[in-house]
């Protein structure tokens, strides 16, 4: 487009200037079922292929577990979806219209993909309440945050999340003082506050007591349906408890996919993973 056309478009009087339009990210289009499409994704680090021509589809509202031995590419997969790592080849779509490879990490988060890290990552210097407030969905621009005031609706929403994750009694404590399990819960709470369409959850029960694990399982299964939940987990008992569909990764590829039972009886899976870890 030449300069003149640019100028004409800019000076149209029936439209707001394009640069003044708030950048609204459309809702993902999921009419065909899947909410995440990964096709032919390859990521290599110094020649080592962390992901090798991987294709994976996550349906809207499903709860998917991804398992695989160490180095299978599980965390890299999450990095690719959330924009932290750019793949060397392949495409990643959120619904049918949003090309995630074109967006920054923050834009991907605003579009509706939330992530929980493997190691619980919370804002240690802030109170539990403020952690949730910062994560809360809404306008996250600089000016807005300078003049933002905590409204009653927002406060109520945060309090209800505090109830859900069982931290209501700790709202005023600094997040750094929480126990490991509590931090995991806080991070899950922050995901809830963000209210994403897709939750990517990396090892949610690491370091949790059996009781906490059970509650986490309940929470995650309860979320599925309204949200799509992708869980990466090592704890096979936990996966058995929540899994509906399981994807097994091995050396950066999808090795098998299906119900827990199908996967467990797949000889290739037994060979690389379950066989050696069955008593886990």
């Amino acid at each position, binding site marked *: 487009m030449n300069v003149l056309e640019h100028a004409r478009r800019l000076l149209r009087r029936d439209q707001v200037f394009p640069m003044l339009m708030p950048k609204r990210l459309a809702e993902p289009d999921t009419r065909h079922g899947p909410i995440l499409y990964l096709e032919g994704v390859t990521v290599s680090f110094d020649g080592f292929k962390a992901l090798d021509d991987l294709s994976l589809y996550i349906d809207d509202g499903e709860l998917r577990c991804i398992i695989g031995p160490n180095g299978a590419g599980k965390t890299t997969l999450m990095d690719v979806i*959330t924009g*932290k790592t750019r793949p060397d080849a392949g495409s990643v779509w959120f619904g049918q219209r949003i090309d995630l490879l074109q967006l*920054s*990490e*923050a*834009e991907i*988060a*605003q579009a509706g993909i*939330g*992530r929980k*890290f493997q190691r619980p*990552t*919370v*804002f*240690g*210097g*802030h*109170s539990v*309440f*403020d952690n949730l*407030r*910062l*994560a809360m*969905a809404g306008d*996250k*621009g*600089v000016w807005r*945050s*300078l*003049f*933002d005031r*905590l409204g009653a609706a927002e406060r109520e929403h945060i309090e209800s999340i505090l109830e859900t994750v069982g931290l209501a009694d700790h*709202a*005023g404590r*600094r997040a750094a003082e929480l126990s490991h399990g509590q931090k995991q819960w806080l991070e899950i709470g*922050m995901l809830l506050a*963000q209210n994403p369409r897709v939750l990517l959850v990396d090892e949610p029960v690491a370091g949790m007591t059996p009781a906490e694990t059970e509650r986490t399982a309940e929470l995650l299964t309860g979320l599925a349906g309204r949200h799509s939940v992708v869980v990466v987990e090592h704890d096979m008992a936990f996966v058995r408890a929540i899994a509906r569909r399981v994807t097994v990764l091995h050396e950066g590829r999808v090795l098998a996919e299906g119900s827990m039972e199908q996967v467990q009886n797949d000889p290739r899976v037994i060979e690389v993973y379950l066989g050696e870890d069955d008593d886990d």
Partner: protein
Amino acid sequence: MRPPVLLDRPARWLLGALAAGALLVVLGNALVPQGHALHVSTYTVTLLGKYLCYALLALALDLVWGYCGILSLGHAAFFALGGYAMGMYLMRQIGTRGVYGHPVLPDFMVFLGWEELPWYWHGFDQFWFAAAMVVLVPGALALVFGWFAFRSRVTGVYLSIITQALTFALMLAFFRNEMGFGGNNGLTDFKDILGFDLQADATRLGLFLASAAALASAYLLARRIVTSKFGQVLVAIRDSEARVRFAGYEVEHFKLWIFVFSAMLAGVAGALYVPQVGIINPSEFSPLNSIELVIWVAVGGRATLWGAVAGALLVNYAKTVFTGLLPEAWLFLLGALFVLVTLFLPKGLAGVFLHRKGRPT
């Protein structure tokens, strides 16, 4: 959960102390006769005004380092740029009173045999123009520098090193006569500001009060920022940058905004400093100045704002005393102070104070 208040107890104390101190200085200087024990000499007034400029500079650094975790080792560059903008105005005010008596050109340009004013010296005969440049030039440099650095995700020690390189490069550039800023002599021999004689006691007092007012306003603005949600995002970036990103905040925008704001505050500090000390030269860009600045903030305590102010005042007072007694030992003492604070008081004097009051920081 109570939201943080703008004027919490330390804020009220600091502003109260500043107002009371300024009042005492004014009374002691203007009303108490010379020779009386309570008389505050004009020399002391100017010295205190200088400390207040340093405190403002420390406040600016605390915003980016203490709150956002960006350790800038080149913040004195913004201070010096603000100072040069003011210095250029003061040079233009000299007029025909220079040694060579040239109506437009400052002395050093006549000495270099220049025929006319370089383009970037135009407009500096107007105070409003110079005052705008005091914030715009440091702000623009911070904007460009920060945009490249933050967009490329340069963080931690690498960022510190390139900020250090930035101020060093500026120092070398300003040393050159061809730059048109007076080379290694810098700008000096100022006569008056806004028509007031710079040597007069009343002008000195006015500059001191302007510095105090600037510090108080900047402190209030900084409090406003750190008590907002914006301030919480800054601290969150310091503690866990990746988490902030995945929560949907454009980290680069926040860093850039606070970096530019901080550079502008530093510019104002420099502009108030120059008429009080009467000279600005390239040594103000020297990396050592930026490092000393970091030490003031570290000694006072990061991420409290008042700690940075207190640290700047205390360390500079100590500097004045010790360089009088033992000039050679000062740098060793400063180094030792920094090591001791880092080892034993990681949160600075503010940390000790808050700890004694039984409140976790």
